[in-house]
């Protein structure tokens, strides 16, 4: 079980958090102008990487804030956490 460093609260048990899928998928500003395929790309297609993955997490049983995490899925190492809207601090 991870120890997650919430950017707002500090280190907390994983059980306080909820994972929210892939990060940095921006909701299209004008969905009506998208083709079915383009909309489906936004709606359904997600990466499932062995290695460095960018994820959304929510400190749901804490400050309730959403934030981003960079995690190596091959060994569960958390490389970084950062606030929504910020650029990932690692590649």
């Amino acid at each position, binding site marked *: *079980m*991870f*120890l997650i460093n919430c950017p707002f609260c500090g280190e907390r*048990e994983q059980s306080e958090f*909820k994972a*929210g899928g892939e990060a940095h998928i*921006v*909701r*299209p500003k*004008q*969905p*009506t102008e*998208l083709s*079915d395929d383009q*909309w*489906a790309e936004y*709606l359904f297609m997600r990466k499932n990487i062995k290695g460095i993955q960018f994820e*959304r997490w*929510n400190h*749901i049983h804490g400050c*309730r*804030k*959403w934030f981003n995490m960079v995690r190596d899925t091959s*060994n*569960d*190492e958390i490389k970084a956490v950062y606030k*929504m*809207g910020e650029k990932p601090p690692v590649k």
Partner: protein
Amino acid sequence: MTKNLRVKSSKLVDETYRISFKFNGTTYYGFKGDTLASALLANNIHLVGRSFKYHRPRGIMTAGSEEPNAIVQLHNGTSRTEPNVRATEIEIYEGLVASSQNCWPSVKFDIGGINNFLSPLLPAGFYYKTFMWPASFWEKYEYFIRKSAGLGKSPEVPDPDIYEHKYIHCDVLIIGAGISGIIAAKTAAKNGFKTLLVEEKSYLGGSTIYQDSEFFKINNQSTASWLEKEINEIKKIENLEIKTRTSVAAFHGYNFLLARENLIDHLPLEQRENKTRQKLLKIRAKKVITATGSIERPLIFDNNDRPGILLSSAVKKYADLFGVACGEKNILFTNNDSAYETAISLIQKGIKVQAIIDNREEVDSKLIKETEKNNIKIYKGYTIVDTFGYKRINSVSIMKLSQDGQKVIGSKENISCDSLGISGGWTPAVHLFTQSGGKLKFRNDDQVFIPNTYPSNQISIGSCNGDFTLDEILMNALKLLKEFLNIKKTEYENIELYSAFNKSKRNIWLLPSNKIVGKTKSFVDFQNDATAKDIKLALREGFRSIEHVKRYTTTGMGTDQGKLGNMHALGIISETASSKMGELGTTTFRPPYTPLTFGTIVGRNVGKYFDIIRKTPIHEWHVKNKAEFENVGQWKRAWYYPQNGENMHQAVQRESKAARDSAGILDASTLGKIDIQGTDASEFLNRVYTNAWSKLEIGKCRYGLMLNEDGMVYDDGVTTRLDENHYIMTTTTGGAATVLNKMEDYLQTEWPELDVYLTSVTDHYATISICGPNSKKIIQKVIPEIDLSDKDFPHMSFKNSKIGKMKCRVMRISFTGEQSYEINIQANYAKSVWENCMEAGKEFNITPYGTETMHLLRAEKGFIIVGQDTDATMTPIDLQMDWIVSKKKFDFIGKRSLYRSDTIREDRKQLVGLITDNPKEILEEGAQIVADINKTPIEMLGHVTSSYFSPNLNKSIALGVIKGGKNMMGQKLIIPMEKKLINVTVTDPVFLDKENKRLNA
């Protein structure tokens, strides 16, 4: 043949404290400190069970948690009976009753033993091969397999014991209190670390604590007495917590570990009352030091599984620690020096050693010399090729090994015995290390896997790190500790060590025999009856991956996870397939390290504590008035209120009639309530609901439908505009938390520019809903100051008001189709307001109704329930609710998905009403709907989602979803049931008052 094999005084047992226990119906005696295994051995009992597949007689093999064979059923009454208890771990107590499992009718005469003679028919993969065909035979096979291969019986009544969970946070956790663990604990604690030391056994010191001879010394004392002093010292250290009988079950990432602390299983039964049986410790450690030691390897030769064959280290431990001889004529069989340590212990205790058979040809060792001094015959360069004795070993056949160790040569010699101790060297116990994500490397010198890379802040020390001799252990452990704890020196810097142990070993994974492999039974996995022959067969059949061989042969898949024989399986694979050991990898060790009871896993979360129970503030009134309750999420909701012996149907008919004829009252407090404030609140609602919100006047209410981004209906409810920038949203009971989370998600991640604040106020307000033609009169009595005229307070509007001094919000909204008012009041006043309403409504026969009646009333009106009439595949268009989807709004969640090629299909399942030809026939919810029953396969058009008998319409009504249902109005369809066909007609889903006259009546 009961004998007393108790020898001189021992380290652990208290011979002044005698304990009686029963095994397979006979009473025996042991002493305090004995395990069931040591007490049985003292009574000369080796045969304790039958093997899983061949039902071969099996005895105690080890003295620890790695035991594959001696697993028994404990009987402490029907509720406390426990299967699969390792006899080597359970400490005896007065009143213990145990029996063999996996044998029928008895351990001495076992019907399944016939499998042993049929074994040519039971090769590797026999489960897969045999039972695949013919498929119809499977049920028969299963019956016999279950009967003859059961691994014990589980209790059939609830577990009466108390279990707890506890979180522990520490700086340093040390797993295992052998010599390395003790040194580590003392060093960590003395350097100021908050330290926790856990040990699975009842005593500290591991195997060193009974290593009492002149051949192993620290600072010129025997290792045992040196360690004893250390133990006495660490017990006094304040920041060091020591937990014995505590075994680590799982080592997860980020140094999170689960351990089971066993508190009462060793106590006499009468001392256990009202005490916690086991604690599941959830440990988060900044640093972890694994010092789990090593497990002795068996040797793999023909018939190496007979009762009386034990690990050599177990023979030593039973003698030293428990004062028990495993036999009167002992033979030891080894490929390394360990067996000589055993021999010396046995000699010290006056136990006869018949002979030692050593694979090694020439070794120079002080231990061997000492053994030879005692006139013990040592066969150097020999191997055992067979053993004899059905229920107990009585002799062995030995032959000389060829130079390369691949063959046997010369003639056979027989030696009689009643016990055989075997040693194939040692395997580091790396199970927990690998669970944590650690990677191993293979050390060719002595053919062991040892820790290589650590995934978290941890180290392994001692023999689990591949350091087996006293000097290696101490030197390496101290070096590692200093680095790991970042300290300059320890108090062990100038320690003097003496060890007579010679590290040489002659490793042969599968010992040669004078028979061909196919004719031998050389067991690799004793619990699952996997032999060397099986592994070779799997390789011949093309399996290469160790994980595949494991599953095909079931090697390592028992409750012991193959702690003894996994290495040999790998070795045999590598030799047969000519691949390198290090490249094969190992199989994955999974938690738990040793099995856990379910009680420990669930802790206190049993019975009514299984989940949180939420009750409304009016709950006690419902209880007093004999409501039946239903669970809605975590909520207890009043379901219906039976009177005078009514059943549910009768109660619901009465309640629904009263609600439409005069007045009904419902506790709607469980509906989710979210307070929405901010200058962008209206814009926010525009984006989360399908309809438009900007123009909603202050004081008005509106029904809203919320979609997922995929266009499917997610939740619904009424939202009221309290003020310019202030709304109160209601959600479904089950959806309250997820709706709030979803809206927070969008606010924080997609629309951070919006000035909107969300607060859950579900628990702050209670909601009392009164409906029916007389509802207005009742509300007027309860709140005299409010103007309820239709002009001033029309349907879908809201007013702030007061009941006495209590502020309340009144909404005129309806989920039943009747004129209806909701009073929202601070939760702690709710019960008295409810009672006021009941009093005021008495003259109108106000009738409390539950969720069942609510569902019926709304179904009459064709209102959907999200989650009952919808699943995650229904769009608002499918629900025939096009009217609620704004065409003008630029965007809202899910809008784009409503015209994807899939969502605009005409033949999607759509919500319709269903009327049965026979008005008395009530459909079953979930029943399939078809058009043509003669077509094969029958085409399923849809299913019934809601169904009731409506007392107000005096007929059966139902809602359902049907492919292309929108265009099927008036069509006849069929609902096939088990014994009949029900004819229905598709209708509009609104059955009652299509013109909404009643709302404004």
